[in-house]
């Protein structure tokens, strides 16, 4: 790792890190966030559909709880996950502390309410008569669910994106449960873009932190672009 500061050197003429280092950080960031959001989506969509389709006592309360979860402080989630996976905690025997799996767990807890809440709003906004029509045409519950998902797909894509945005830009909990570990050979084990930015800023190397920040923004932008593209293919509901 170079100790030369970038202050006197114009940006990019002397890139302040090893390419391997930055690439491994990107890989870890994407691996953790994508895995967490994929798991969140798998769990959240059925919940959103179930809640969106049915009327029951306490529906408003449940919706409020989900919406509250969207704003849950990430460091609190990090602490809770740390207590769970620590050697002293209930999952201690799995030795998950300071691993990517622990980071995925905390990102899952953070992203799931976001994905659930936003998809629930999307599902609820699908016209009741669309669902009625699907039933009227002899559809099963599954058919109706599929029709609703199709109608609400843009909203659901937004939900997944919001969850991804929450996961990849989050720093508090991954720092606590992941430990911001990079090997001596300059590759990341549990270091993400956000925790690397935090570390570089702590070391006073703001140029380096800024460059990592630009990389992070670029990733979010690209992922957004891809999902918007997928969502708009085939026209239909916007």
């Amino acid at each position, binding site marked *: 790792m170079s100790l030369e500061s970038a202050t006197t050197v114009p940006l990019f003429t002397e890139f302040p890190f090893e390419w391997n280092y930055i690439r491994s950080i990107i890989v870890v960031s994407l691996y953790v966030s994508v895995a967490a959001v994929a798991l969140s989506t798998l769990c959240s969509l059925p919940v959103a559909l179930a809640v969106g389709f049915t009327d029951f006592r306490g529906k408003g309360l449940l919706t409020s709880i989900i919406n509250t979860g969207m704003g849950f402080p990430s460091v609190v989630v990090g602490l809770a996950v740390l207590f769970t996976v620590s050697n002293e905690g209930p999952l201690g025997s799995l030795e998950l502390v*300071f691993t990517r799996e622990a980071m995925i767990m905390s990102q899952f807890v953070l992203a799931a309410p976001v994905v659930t809440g936003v998809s629930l709003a999307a599902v609820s906004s699908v016209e009741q008569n669309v669902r009625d029509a699907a039933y009227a045409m002899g559809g099963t519950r599954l058919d109706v669910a599929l029709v609703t998902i199709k109608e609400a797909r843009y909203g659901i894509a937004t939900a997944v994106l919001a969850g991804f945005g929450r996961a990849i830009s989050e720093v508090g909990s991954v720092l606590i449960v992941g430990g911001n570990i990079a*090997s001596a050979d300059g590759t990341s084990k549990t270091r993400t873009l956000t925790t690397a930015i935090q570390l570089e800023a702590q070391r*006073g190397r703001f140029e380096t932190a800024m460059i990592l920040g630009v990389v992070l923004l670029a990733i979010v932008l690209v992922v957004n672009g891809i999902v918007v593209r997928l969502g708009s293919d085939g026209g239909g509901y916007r």
Partner: protein
Amino acid sequence: MTIQRREFVAALAAGGAAGLAGCSTLTGDDSGDAGISGKTLTLTTTTSTYNTGLLDELNAPFEDRYGVSVDAVSQGTGQALKTARNGDSDVVMVHARSLEDEFMEEGYGVNRRDLMYNDFVVIGGPDDPAGIGGSDDVTEAFTAIADSESSFVSRGDDSGTHTKELEIWDETGLNVNEFGEWYQEAGQGMGDVINMATQQGSYTLSDRGTYLDMQDEVDLEIHVQGPIEGGPELLANPYGIVAVNPAVHDNVEYDLAMAYIGFITSPEGQDLIENYTANGEQLFYPEALSEEPNFQQYVPEGWSADSTGNSSDSSDE
């Protein structure tokens, strides 16, 4: 490099002997260094060793030699010891002897070794509003800062540096809890605190290593030197390394931890520490190699079980 290997075994033997003080029950799965290849050592350490880049320098050759990997987690000394207490790390490298002793006395650590030292310095903006520049009495300097109510940033995070800072305030006889707004507790790492002090032109207590590493990027000067540059002994900053007791947490990689301790306290490890520089200046001074045995390093200072006359004149305290 068979010589290194032998030194490691010797260190392990020495460690084992010292271990009699704490515990001697290795959870006998595998003995010696035969079974450590491919394993991962979790090291919790302070921000000062980590942020200065020293650890990369030490860990890479260790990883190569033993075919293992080292996961270094940088926390404050208090947090690092807490993580070790929970059995979430295998070895801790920290710099607050009182907290290390507590850790040992409560049975969580074994085989503590003195590792290296550097010192603390009082840094602040170039205008030096409290007029402490060049003082060789840090207690007086702190008193002057408090009297002039000049802005001061405290780590406030139970780190080794924070522990030392409170020790100095204690020496002045002033009560930190009664300080006004000029005294700010950041609750953050050394680097963050140095950045804060730069923004506000505040004083702060820093370890020399972190300050030297960041010197070019900040607008702060050393006002009170530590013992390395002839300053008071009170500003000495010794680092120790402690293995987590496998009798308390049987999941810890004790053999690997002892291999690591053996390596970084060996002549090779100590050379790496001595030769590590930032901005052309040496950051840490090796302390593990000694002509005379210093048994007191293995056990808490003033420990009652030590009945052998207790001449605790350790090299820099």
